[in-house]
């Protein structure tokens, strides 16, 4: 089937066309027109309840009459290249819900918590007509922060009794969060987790970075102060609060104009990713086909050239200096 026919069907909201186009962009780079909507990113440690939280949020969004697209990323094995995608299993009650589209993806070795094609899939879900796109990252540790480049609101899940207050002041994931969610609030230690995060936030007021530059540098607005909420994803307890905070963040983005900034950053980042992908491919081709490079490699092996000088020579060969 040609892309045009598929895109035609996608514009009419055809589910199969959306699914097939995702397969295509997952396997190679393609592009689509963009219609903007709300993009939530959910991240957190393995087993913190990301999929269950998404399932409960989706129930609420669907009740509000919204069309929801969900992208769940799970890790690819570094040994075999295979993957077991098991997020969908937590969202069973939405398998036949109209207006819910769930797609599982393997990260295919991409670091950062997402898969390479995530951006493209967000676009397809946009065109498909989703009002809200929810992205679930792989279970993350401390430094998988790609989600903040893709999502408009970053929700980080934490659970009680995991890590002490030192964990809360480390760099990385705690710095990119818009909303902290302490899940499994029925467990002991939930309140202590909340106060640890609160203390961390109080300390993190930084005068240099306390303002967000908008309109490419001139105007400045006050930064969003991350919010904390505790919930129970299984029972839906406190989800009213969570939704209020999600909406509050959304209004902040729109009223301050930070959203425009976000789109600029996102496109810049996307361009960089595409260029990286294409250039890497080109370099790999060159490395395997150019006899000149084989000679350089010999020279490096004989220690008569260093690898940095070789890299510069190869860049000259590529003709992009």
């Amino acid at each position, binding site marked *: 089937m040609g892309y045009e026919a598929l895109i035609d069907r996608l514009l009419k909201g055809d589910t*199969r066309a959306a*699914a097939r186009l995702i397969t295509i962009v997952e396997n190679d780079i393609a592009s689509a027109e963009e219609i903007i909507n709300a993009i939530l990113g959910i991240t957190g440690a393995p087993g913190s309840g990301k999929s269950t939280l998404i399932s409960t949020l989706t129930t609420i969004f669907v009740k509000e009459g919204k069309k929801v697209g969900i992208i769940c990323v799970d890790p690819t094995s570094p040994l075999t290249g*295979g993957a077991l995608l098991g997020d969908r*299993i937590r969202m*069973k009650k939405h*398998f*036949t819900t109209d207006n819910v589209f*769930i797609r599982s993806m393997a990260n*295919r070795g991409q670091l950062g918590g997402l898969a390479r094609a995530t951006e493209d899939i967000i676009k397809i879900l946009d065109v498909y007509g989703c009002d809200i796109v929810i992205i679930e990252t792989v279970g993350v540790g401390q430094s998988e922060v790609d989600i903040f480049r893709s999502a408009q609101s970053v929700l980080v899940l934490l659970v009680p009794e995991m890590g002490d207050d030192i964990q809360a002041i480390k760099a990385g994931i705690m710095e990119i969060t818009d909303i902290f969610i302490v899940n499994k609030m029925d467990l002991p230690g939930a309140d202590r987790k909340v106060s640890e995060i609160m203390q961390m936030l109080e300390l993190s007021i930084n005068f240099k970075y306390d303002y967000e530059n908008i309109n490419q540098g001139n105007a400045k607005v006050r930064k969003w102060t991350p919010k904390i909420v505790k919930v129970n994803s299984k029972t839906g307890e406190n989800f009213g609060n969570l939704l209020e905070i999600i909406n509050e963040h959304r209004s902040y983005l729109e009223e301050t104009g930070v959203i425009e900034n976000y789109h600029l950053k996102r496109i810049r980042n996307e361009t960089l990713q595409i260029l990286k992908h294409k250039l890497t491919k080109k370099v790999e081709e060159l490395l395997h086909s150019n006899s000149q490079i084989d000679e350089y490699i010999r020279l490096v092996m004989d220690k008569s050239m260093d690898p940095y000088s070789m890299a510069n020579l190869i860049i000259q060969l590529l003709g992009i200096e």
Partner: protein
Amino acid sequence: MPENRKIKVLVCKPGLDGHDRGAKVIARALRDAGMEVIYTGIHQTPDDVVNTIIQEDPDAVMLSILSGAHNALCPIIMDKLKENGIDDVLVAVGGIIPDEDKPNLEAHGLKGFHGPGTELKEIVEFVKTNLKR
């Protein structure tokens, strides 16, 4: 399709049968063979299965049934796939499938029929060699 394309497989347990040890072992074996495997869990209705196939766009679907409900469930799933115009997905059923039931299931387009004791590498090979796209 590009050559480095990953094989994507859906492993499902349709019907009321809750015995999913076999399905999990097969999911694991396919994963270890370098495939991307989605496991949907137990108690799937035919609509659940078909909707998941539509959204996930897998290359192969492995239905695992040990309860004897294959004659009732499999044809419904195949009919619904046809209604949705899906004809390029390998659909296999395994578990406890008596020989006398196989011709009818085959007529509906099902393949495989792997039972207890099948070697895992045989199932991996089966998936690799029977893909429709």
